[in-house]
């Protein structure tokens, strides 16, 4: 088993799937040259320009053409260069991909995967930093995955490609090359909708996903060492569908819930998690359901001083854990 970066794991997942099934193609801007993050390095040499297709710079048409191709026996992976640039394709994703199966009473479907790098913390400014999962988690008919580790990226991307429904696959760009992790060379999948307990604990349940998983684990370790507080960290990995059972089971055990997400606090996906806990685990709660997220300013300003001020980090999370633990 080799240690890989997340971008290598993403590449491996696509490469292996495209080797396995010739119906699968990758299409997007600059993918022929390997893509701006090098996720399709060497694909043209292996699969040719038809299966690793450079497209005109037009996100709506990338997604729309992928939808059309998927109706006619192709399984497209549409790469949008940055999540921030996915907005021109919003109509195709929400009106078309998400609703096609429903509005045709189950007769048509579109098995497409839309991959895009998302998230902040890389000094990317207001247009290379956005989190977009809440938009799409709100839409029935879409599955939404947020990955920030090599192992999850490979297993979940394979599941996304094989899923008969449209899947939004969000790759946290800060995690692309931040660290390496052992990734099996062989084929494996991770079920969509299954959370992972990163560390077991008994005092507080911390629910998170994406890059915030890493910050949360750090904060939990600090609290364990300094205060002896035992935090159960759950990485949702998939926000639609999300693993309510696992989360509720844990909250019923600990009696306290802290939700950490990178997006703006208002209407972020963590709000849905909070509402569900408040409704379905009310009798078990021993403190306020609490959120740590970014304030409601456009994410994120270019200056790293400004960006760091806004984003949640291990210190802010640790502080919130302390406050909640005091109840």
């Amino acid at each position, binding site marked *: 088993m080799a240690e890989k970066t997340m971008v290598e794991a993403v590449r491996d997942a696509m490469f292996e799937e495209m080797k396995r099934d010739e119906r699968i*193609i990758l299409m997007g801007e600059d993918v022929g040259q390997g893509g701006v993050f090098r996720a399709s390095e060497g694909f043209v040499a292996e699969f040719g320009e*038809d*299966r690793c297709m450079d*497209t*005109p710079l*037009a996100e*709506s*048409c990338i*997604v*729309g*053409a*992928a*939808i*059309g*191709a*998927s*109706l*006619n*026996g*192709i399984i*497209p992976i549409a790469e949008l260069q940055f999540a921030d640039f996915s907005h*021109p394709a919003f*109509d*195709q994703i929400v*009106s*078309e991909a998400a*609703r*096609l*199966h*429903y*509005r*045709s*009473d*189950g*007769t*048509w*479907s579109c*098995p497409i995967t839309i991959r895009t790098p998302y998230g902040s913390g890389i000094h990317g400014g207001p247009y290379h930093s956005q989190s977009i999962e809440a938009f799409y988690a709100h839409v*029935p*008919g879409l*599955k939404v995955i947020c990955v920030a580790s090599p192992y999850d990226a490979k297993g979940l991307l394979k599941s996304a490609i094989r899923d*008969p*429904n449209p899947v939004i696959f969000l790759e946290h760009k800060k995690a692309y090359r931040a660290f390496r992790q052992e990734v099996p060379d062989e084929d494996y999948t991770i079920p969509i909708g299954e959370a992972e307990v990163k560390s077991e604990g008994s005092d507080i349940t911390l629910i998170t996903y994406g890059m915030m998983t890493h910050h949360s684990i750090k904060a939990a370790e600090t609290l364990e060492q300094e205060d002896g507080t035992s935090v159960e960290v759950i990485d949702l990995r998939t926000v639609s569908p999300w693993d309510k059972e696992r989360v509720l089971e844990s909250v019923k055990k600990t009696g306290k819930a802290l939700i950490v997400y990178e997006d703006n606090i208002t209407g972020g996906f963590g709000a849905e998690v909070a509402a569900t806990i408040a409704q379905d685990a009310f009798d078990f709660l021993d403190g306020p359901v609490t959120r740590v997220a970014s304030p409601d300013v456009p994410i994120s300003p270019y200056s790293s001083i400004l960006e760091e001020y806004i984003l949640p980090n291990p210190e802010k999370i640790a502080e919130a854990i302390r406050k909640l633990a005091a109840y």
Partner: protein
Amino acid sequence: MTVTREATKTFGLTEKQLVEMQYKMLLARAVSVRQRMLQRMGRGPMTFSGEGHEAVQVGTASALRPGTDWVFAYYRDVAVALTVGMTPRDILRGFFARRDDVSSGGRNMPSHFSHRDLRIVSGSAPICTQVPHAVGAALAAKLRRLDEISVAYFGDGATSTGDWHESMNFAGVHKLPVVFVCEHNNYAISVPWRKQAAIENVAIRAAGYGFPGVTINGNDVLEVYGTMTEAVKRARAGEGPTLIEAKTYRLMPHSSDDDDRRYRTREEVEHWGAKDPLVAYARQLREIGVLDEKSEKDLNDRVNAEVDEATDEVEQEPTPDPASALRHVFVEREGA
């Protein structure tokens, strides 16, 4: 009177095929009129009219191979749907939102045609979103080396959208087997063409995408058929897309909720009414001796009987099971 049949004007179509085209146009008109009547009587919800567009729709769709070629229609395309093989029952089940509505099971608004076996793909209401899908289906046909073409239908309103430009461009770059059919009726609901574009003929834009565009009389079903046949031939031969701009007119308001007196003069509507494609084609068929008074009457009677029968039956059909509203959000896997 001796009748001269000019093969060049009838494109080698048999008498039967020539009459079939009139039959489809009459059928589409009758189904539309019936829906409007039912709506006024409070027996149906709302209607979208394609009346006036029948020649574009029947002329183009008659050049396709149903179930092989891909059809991405929009809400005025009732005559496209009927020509490719949907029935008045199929259309009316959508109108009445009946359980067995093949288009959507009562989920989509009326006139959003879909039929999997006929490869008429379900559409939505935002304008022009189906055009990239037509391009994608054509891309798949090209990648898989299938002898299939794709047709995107839209009105002049669609030509202002980003999706339209993006699709034309994509199809041009990849030389895809797709035909773009613009049913140019001069209005995007109430906005006249002169406020939509600074050019007279949208077909000239095709040059900017690297393929031919042609402007034709959309009220002449045979001219439409002839043009479409050429475009289909080009697509199938791997020569790439064609944009057909068929000039026509919407004889009725946009929908049953629209009052076109606010934006069109009655003189203008009457002017175009005199060019009604059904009347023009019937005259043409009489002139070449394919129809006479009796066969024309028989054809009309047949159409009316068919629509009467379909209305009576479909209105009595069951509505969807309420709880079925929760189904088909996602593909239900076998065994799940």
